[in-house]
C-alpha cells in the first residue's frame, strides 16, 4: 500500500511535467517566433527581430512573407532602408542581410525568396570583392544565433527550438504577453531591422584603429592564378548568373560595395592589389552579358572612398552611403556597361595604384559624424 503511494509520487511528477511540457510546446508552436512550423500570424503577434536573428529568421521571412523587391547581401547591406528603396523603385521591399555571407548563402536566400515570389521585380544585392573566389556554400561560423532546419527525424531539434531560453523568454513569451495586452501586431520594419548605422563613430580614428597593417607599403604585386580564375568563374556562374537566367523578369541590381581607400591600401601592402583588380575585371566580364543584371560600382569615386569620414572601419561605410547608392542605382548612375567598364577599371587602377595612402593617417576626424558635401549635393 505504502509502495503504491511512492510510485504514485513518480506518476504525479510525470503527469505535472508532461502537462507543463505540452503547454510550453503548444505555446511555442502557436507563436512560432522563427516561423519554423507555419507562416507568421501577423494579425495576432508582433514579430520583432534584431541583428542576431538574421540567419535564423531570414529564410523564414523569404518563405512566408510576399514581396516585390529584396535587398540582400553581407553587412554592407544592413544599413539600407527598405522605405527608401520603395520610394525610388515604387515596389514593396524587404531587407534580408546575411553578415559575412559568401555568394552561395546569399544565392540560397535569394532563391527561396524567388520561389515564393516568382514575379519579384527587383533584387538589390552586394557582391563583396573579398568573396569573389570563396566558393563554399556556407559561411564560416560568425557567432550568429543559427538554428538548423527542423526535421522530425531529430525530435530533440524541436525541443531545442521550443524550449530554447533565448527564444522562449526573449521572444515567445513577450510576444504572447504583448498580444494578450492588445499591443501592436505585425513585423519589425525593414528599415530598422539589422540597422547599426547609429551605433558607431565614423572617421579616420575609427578606420585606422581597425586596420590590420600598421603602415602602408608597395611590395611586388601578385597576379590572379588559374585556380582563382576557375573558382571565380564557378562562383559567379552558380551563385549569381544562374538565378538571373532562371528568373529573367527579375532585375538584379548588383553592386560592388565601395570599400575605403584604407582597404585598397591594405591590399597593396599585402601585394594583392593587382590580383584584386584582375579578379574584378573577370567578374564584370562574366556578369555584363546578362541583360537583367545591372552591375554598379563606385570604387573610382575618390570623394567617397578616400574620405574616411564615410567609414567606421576599412570596409563598412556610413548609412548615408547606403542611401546615396540606392539613389544612384535608381538613376542608373555608376552602372557598368560593355562600353564603359574598361575606362572605369582604368580609372580605378590609377586611383589605387598611385594614391598616397600615407596621407590617410593625416586625415582630419571632426567631432561627430559628418556627411560630406559630396553626398548632400
Amino acid at each position, binding site marked *: 500500500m505504502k509502495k503504491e503511494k*511512492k510510485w504514485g*509520487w513518480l506518476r*504525479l511528477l510525470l503527469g505535472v511535467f508532461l502537462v507543463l*511540457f505540452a503547454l510550453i510546446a503548444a505555446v511555442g508552436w502557436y507563436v512560432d517566433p522563427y516561423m519554423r512550423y507555419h507562416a507568421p500570424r501577423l494579425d495576432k503577434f508582433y514579430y520583432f527581430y534584431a541583428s542576431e536573428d538574421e540567419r535564423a529568421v531570414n529564410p523564414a521571412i523569404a518563405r512566408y512573407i510576399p514581396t516585390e523587391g529584396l535587398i540582400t547581401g553581407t553587412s554592407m547591406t544592413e544599413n539600407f532602408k527598405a522605405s527608401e528603396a520603395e520610394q525610388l523603385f515604387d515596389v514593396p521591399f524587404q531587407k534580408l542581410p546575411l553578415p559575412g555571407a559568401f555568394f552561395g548563402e546569399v544565392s540560397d536566400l535569394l532563391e527561396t525568396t524567388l520561389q515564393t515570389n516568382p514575379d519579384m521585380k527587383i533584387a538589390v544585392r552586394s557582391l563583396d570583392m573579398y568573396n569573389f573566389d570563396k566558393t563554399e556554400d556556407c559561411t564560416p561560423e560568425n557567432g550568429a544565433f543559427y538554428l538548423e532546419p527542423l526535421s522530425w527525424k531529430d525530435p*530533440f531539434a524541436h525541443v531545442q527550438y521550443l524550449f530554447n*531560453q533565448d527564444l*522562449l*523568454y*526573449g521572444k515567445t513569451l513577450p510576444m504572447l504577453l504583448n498580444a494578450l495586452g492588445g499591443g501592436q501586431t505585425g513585423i519589425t520594419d525593414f528599415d530598422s531591422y539589422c540597422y547599426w548605422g547609429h551605433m558607431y563613430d565614423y572617421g579616420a580614428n575609427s578606420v585606422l584603429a581597425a586596420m590590420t597593417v600598421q603602415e602602408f607599403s608597395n611590395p611586388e604585386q601578385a597576379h590572379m592564378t588559374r585556380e582563382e580564375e576557375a573558382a571565380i568563374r564557378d562562383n559567379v556562374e552558380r551563385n549569381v548568373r544562374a538565378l538571373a537566367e532562371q528568373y529573367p523578369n527579375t532585375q538584379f541590381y548588383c553592386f560592388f560595395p565601395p570599400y575605403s581607400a584604407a582597404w585598397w591600401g591594405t591590399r597593396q601592402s599585402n601585394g594583392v592589389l593587382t590580383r584584386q583588380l584582375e579578379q574584378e575585371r573577370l567578374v564584370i566580364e562574366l556578369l555584363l552579358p546578362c541583360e537583367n543584371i545591372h552591375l554598379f560600382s563606385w570604387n573610382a569615386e575618390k570623394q567617397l572612398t578616400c574620405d574616411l569620414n564615410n567609414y567606421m572601419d576599412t570596409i563598412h561605410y556610413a548609412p548615408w552611403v547606403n542611401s546615396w547608392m540606392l539613389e544612384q542605382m535608381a538613376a542608373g548612375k555608376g552602372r557598368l556597361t560593355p562600353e564603359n567598364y574598361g575606362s572605369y577599371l582604368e580609372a580605378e587602377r590609377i586611383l589605387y595604384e598611385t594614391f598616397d595612402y600615407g596621407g590617410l593617417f593625416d586625415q582630419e576626424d571632426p567631432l561627430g559624424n559628418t556627411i560630406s558635401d559630396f553626398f548632400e549635393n
Partner: protein
Amino acid sequence: MQFNSASFLLLAMPAAVIGYFLLGKLGRKPAQIFLVLGSLVLYAQGGWKGLCLLCCSIAGNGLLCLWMKKAAKGRRAILWLGILMHVGVLVAYKYLDFAGEIFGNLLGRTLQFPQFALPLGISFFTFQQISYLVDAYQGKTEGNTALDYLLYSTYFPKLLMGPIVRQDALLVWFRAEKGMEADSDRIAAGLQRFVYGLFKKVILADLFSNPATWLKAPEATSVELILAAMAYGFQIYFDFSGYTDMACGFSEMLNIRLPENFRSPYQALSMRDFWKRWHMTLTGFFTEYIYIPLGGSRKGSLRTYFNTMLVFLISGLWHGANWTFVLWGALNGALCIFDRLTEKYRKHIHPAFSWMVTFCAVNVLWILFQADSVGQWLECIRSIFSFEKMSVGGKFLAASVTPALNFLFALPGFRSLWAFSGKLCVFCLFGGSLALCLGARNTAERTYAVNWRTAVWTAILLILCLTCMNGNAVFVYNGF
C-alpha cells in the same frame, strides 16, 4: 553526453533506469552489461577518439592487472609500468605543450610537440585506473570479474567528472542483495537530488558565468572585478557541485551510492577546512595515494609541510597545464601550511572573521584559477585593490541577467523594481546565492520527502531547467 542536455534528460536517463531494472529481472549480468554498453554509448557522444582512448586505457590496465595476478615476481615493476603508462598518456594529451614551453625556455629555443584534443574526463578516468591498479597490486581486487572491472571503469555517472571512487566502494553496491529491485524511495530521492543539481548548474552556474567573464574585461572597475570574482566563485561551485548532485542522484536511482564531493565548502573557517569540504574525493585520492605513502604527518613537521606542498602542486598541475595552476596549487599549499602553523594562535579569533578571511582567500585564488597567465592575475588583483573606479556600469548589470531574468524583470511589478535599481536586483542575486551557500542544507545531507508537494515542485523545477538550458554551456571541470 552531458547531464544538462535535453537528450539526456528526456531519453538517456529514463532509458537507463528503466532498461537497467527491466533487464535486472533477468539477472544481474544482463543489467550490468547493459550499463557498461550504455555508458560507452553515452561517452561516445563526446567523440569516437575519446572513446578509443578510454577503451585502450581500460584494456591496457586490465591486461596489466591480469599479468600482475599471474606473475610470481616483479609485481611492483608491473605496477610502476602501469602507473607510468597512465601518467604518460595523461602527459601526452594534457602537458606536452606546457612541457615544450618549459624545456624551450630552458634551452632557449622553440620546442613544438604534437597537440591532441583533450578527451572528456581523461584526468578522472586515468586516476581511477591507477587506483584500480594499486588495489590490484595490494590484492584488493581478488574475486572481481571482468564485468566488475568494466563496470567500475565505465560507470557513466562518475566517468566524466567524478566523484573519484575506489573500486570496492563502488562494486559493493552492484553486489547488494536488493540492488536489482527498483526502489521507489530511492528513485524519488535520486530524481529530486538530480533536479536540484540541474538547477544549480542551469539556473545558478550559468547565470554567474557571464559576469565572471568580466575578470578579463579591461574596462572593468574595482567593484565590478570584485563582483566578477565572486561570480566565478559561485559559478565554479554551483557548476561542479551541481554536476556531483546530478551524478549522485542519477546513480541513486540505480541503487548505486556514489561518495560525496562537497560539504558546503564556502562555510569553511580555514583553508584546510575548505579542502576537507571541496572536491573531497580528489583530496581523498591524493591523501591516500601520495600524502600517506610519503609519510603524511607522521614524520615530523617539516616533512608534513613538504608533503602538503607536494600534494597541492600535483593537484594544481592535475587541474591544468599552465603556470597559473602550478601557482594556484602552491599558494593553496602555502596557506594550508600557514593554517597548520598558526592553528593554536587562532583559537580566540571570531568564526565570522575566520570565515571572511577564508572566503576572500579562496576567491582571490579562484581568480588565478581562471586566468590565462600569472601576469593577468596580478593585473586583476592590482585593479581590484587600486579602488580607482568604484562604480557598477550598465553593461555589467546587463551581463548579470539571463534571458529568463530579463523576461522576469520586464513583467509588470518587477519592471519597476529593475527600473528603481538594477544594481539592487543584481546585488540581491549575489546576496541570495551567498545565503544559499551559507544557509541552505547541503544536498547530500537533505532528506528528500516523498509527498505531492515535492512531486509538483520537482516537476516545476525540471521544466524550468529545461527551458533555461543553454546548448553551449559546458561544465567548468570538463576542461580538466
